[in-house]
């Protein structure tokens, strides 16, 4: 408030000092604790999802392993590397802000944003693939296709990611044409892991109840459990991607500030705080990658 400021103008010789603080040290400490409390809040926010993941992975290990095997570990791994690189450039942004080197700051922020965008781009590719394979767990949100269209599609022009008309990858399961007239979630990729587990004797009676009806394997019951995996996958990665988008917004603001030469050895806490947020989002992915993409992969030989 302009009316508030007059009495305390004598503080304003330090750049960025707000009226309620006595000195920059107090302000920086406050902002830093505040940011960490926000991160604690974020950890608990994602924690609810991790609990849900834990409960159902414990209940339906084979269905979750099947689901995992249909995510593309290459894209997931690539994204992990991309995010780690962006974390490095973010850390260097803080480093150069502390040094007061404006040009390097700007460069590092641009690189961070670039890698963040690449991450989201890869996510789009992955989501598109799920859309084309009928693996989005919401009825009607998948690509609709009748058998007749499959043949036509193969002839006509199509983008590379649209060409895939066979619902199988990762080297297992029967190959079937993609037929999905209403865009439902569908699982045409077999249940090899359940068979393996059954043979190997490590399919517990408790898990068996969830996939079998009347003593026989029930593909519809199994599909529901895989669908659960994809639901959790989309909520977790979707929320993570949302955090990435927010992070890109923060970075854009930071870029503007850095361009103006706001930050120096005396005043760089906005850079540091944005960095904390960015690294946090990276940490979430560090856990999401093995939990969603990798666990259960060793079952396939």
């Amino acid at each position, binding site marked *: 408030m302009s009316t508030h400021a007059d009495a305390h103008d004598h503080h304003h010789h330090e750049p960025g000092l707000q009226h309620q603080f006595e000195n920059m040290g107090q302000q920086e400490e406050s902002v830093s604790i505040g940011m960490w409390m926000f991160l604690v809040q974020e950890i608990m926010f994602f924690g609810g999802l991790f609990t849900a993941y834990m409960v159902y992975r414990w209940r339906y290990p084979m269905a979750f392993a099947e689901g995992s095997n249909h995510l593309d570990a290459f894209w997931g791994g690539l994204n*992990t590397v991309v995010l780690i690189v962006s974390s490095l450039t973010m*850390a260097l942004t803080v480093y150069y802000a502390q040094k007061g080197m404006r040009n390097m700051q700007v460069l590092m922020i641009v690189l961070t944003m670039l890698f963040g965008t690449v991450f989201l781009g890869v996510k789009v590719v992955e989501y598109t693939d799920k859309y084309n394979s009928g693996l989005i767990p919401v009825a009607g949100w998948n690509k609709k296709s009748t058998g007749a269209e499959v043949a036509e599609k193969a002839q006509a022009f199509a983008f590379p990611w649209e060409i895939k008309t066979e619902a199988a990858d990762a080297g297992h399961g029967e190959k079937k044409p993609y037929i999905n007239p209403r865009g439902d979630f569908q699982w045409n990729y077999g249940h090899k892991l359940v068979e393996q587990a059954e043979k190997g004797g490590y399919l517990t009676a408790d898990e068996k109840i969830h996939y079998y009806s009347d003593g026989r394997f029930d593909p519809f019951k199994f599909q529901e459990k895989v669908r659960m995996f994809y639901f959790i996958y989309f909520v977790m990665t979707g929320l993570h991607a949302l955090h990435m988008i927010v992070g890109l917004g923060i970075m854009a603001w930071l870029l503007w500030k850095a361009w103006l030469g706001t930050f120096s050895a005396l005043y760089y806490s906005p850079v540091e705080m944005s960095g904390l947020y960015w690294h946090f989002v990276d940490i979430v992915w560090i856990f999401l990658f093995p939990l969603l993409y990798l666990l259960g992969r060793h079952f396939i030989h």
Partner: protein
Amino acid sequence: MAENHTDHEHIGIPGYLAVFAILIVGTWITYVVAFWDLDSIFPGANTLLALAIAFTKMTVVMLYFMHVRWSKELIWLSAVASFFWLLIMFAFTMQDYFTRVSGVFSA
């Protein structure tokens, strides 16, 4: 904080690059190891190893990229406390599920 302004260099560029290398190597190990059948050693070994590597990576990011190593005790405390609370949520939820299985504490 304010008095730290002179020594805020922390670990410098070589240090950051070293941390980066650890993270990349960690990712690579996670990826490779995920295809080995460690569950034959004991059930859950794959999960355990994947999470152990993830925790290591997280610790490195927090300590060096997020500067926790040079932060006040309160920052340490809030970082540790948040994971402790997560652990409470996991442990007390799972104690229900683990004991709900047929044959354990039920008719």
